[in-house]
């Protein structure tokens, strides 16, 4: 993936910035030009809370190129509190500790490195929710 694309996506990657539809009021992630629910254009940026729960998950033992150093790792569909389903890696958790419905929260972690001389790409992952006491 190119430098320009990673750079353009930084708001959604670092801080889960999506959109709220000005027409139907639905919350959208990732952000896109047209609302997937009502087809209206020009949405308003919206910061998602980062809280959600695990909708489904699978553990990757044979990773694609660029992710070898992290295997085995778990990828989940996370149902955000605000509605959208997001695909993301889970972190700080062992595969046997993961359950459907488990509360999780967004953290920003290293997604991959473009080799030893390239950029480090950071983005959202989810981990079991660490409650403020």
């Amino acid at each position, binding site marked *: 993936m190119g430098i320009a694309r990673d750079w353009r996506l*930084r*708001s959604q990657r*670092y*801080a889960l910035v999506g959109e709220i539809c000005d027409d139907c009021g639905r919350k959208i992630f990732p952000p896109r030009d047209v609302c997937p629910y009502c087809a209206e254009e020009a949405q308003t940026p919206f*910061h998602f809370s980062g809280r959600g729960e695990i909708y489904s998950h699978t553990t990757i033992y044979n990773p694609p190129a660029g992710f070898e*150093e*992290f295997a085995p790792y778990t990828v989940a569909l996370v149902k955000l509190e605000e509605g959208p389903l997001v695909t993301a*890696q889970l*972190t*700080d958790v*062992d595969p046997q500790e993961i359950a459907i419905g488990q509360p999780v929260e967004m*953290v*920003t*972690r*290293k*997604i991959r490195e473009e080799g030893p001389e390239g950029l*480090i790409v*950071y983005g959202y*992952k989810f981990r079991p929710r*660490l*409650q*403020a*006491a």
Partner: protein
Amino acid sequence: MGDEGHRARVQDTQHVTRNTQYGIMKPSTDVGIVGYGAYIPRYRLPATEVARVWKGGEGGLPVTEKAVPGLDEDTLTIALEAARNALARAQIDPQLIGAVWVGSESHPYAVKPTSTIVAEAIGATPHTEAADWQFACKAGTETMQASIGFVASGMARYALGIGADTAQGRPGDALEYTAAAGGAAYLIGPAEESLVLFEASFSYVTDTPDFWRRPYMHYPSHGQRFTGEPAYFHHVTSAARHLMAEMDRTAADFTYVVLHQPNAKFPQRAAKMLGFEREQWTTGLLCPVIGNTYAGAAMLGLTAILDEARPGDTILAVSFGSGAGSDAFALRVTERITERQHRAPKTQDYIARRKEIDYATYVRYRKKLQMQ
């Protein structure tokens, strides 16, 4: 030089202490800490594992265990989670943060700031100052000293000072027992919004070659026993004594003390030298269970104290960075602390979130395996 040199230094310190020309640092406008946040990674390497692999299981252990970053963690991710916790406590508009500063000796890039990524992720960009700071383990408290000046002068309403590290120790070296990962963030702002006030601070530095790392070197070098008396103890106690003397305070005037903690022994001995009692330092002494988090060490000890502090409590915090120097801060807790302590995970929550790993897993996580 030996004893003679040491005596000369002590006399020099006493001279400086009496000389008000070198007064303490106190801004003309009162400022304080509006929000604070801690972060400690989940993984722990017991010191017995290092001893098992390198010492045949023999020898003394400087800590019980140390915090190890996961495969997807680095100084940026640690700094960012600490910063988010500080903002959760402060609940201010991040666009009002006029500076985002990250102090570390393990920035992910040699050239490309960690601070701009933190600033972007917390929503402080683009109308802000950002920079990475370096001074071994003192890099984090430097950002606090600078933040005090930046806010007190009116150049910014808020400044965010962060200390974070993923320290590396050479395999088998004494530092491998303790070199750990963690960080803390402090949002400095106006006194009337603060949960802790800076009463005064002081910085004390000399050219003392106790620990260093040359460019392109993976592991640091150190002066063995030279890291003790002329480096850690001289700078920590000089900074603390000067600040207390100028404020006309003694150890008994502080509820808590937290010092830089490269191992379990040094900070306790230095605190005793300064006249403190065990109950004043235990809350902020985290090194035995998380190791030395370098730029995060004194700052994380302070977050652990703030998690427990009550209005009116007083705190002496002193960092130490090799090379060498110390920043000392006298703090007074305000009534705003109680409403904000629970807005983010506490330092002890992160310490309790613990997964023990063996030396082999540690070698993989810290990328000590040559893959190609």
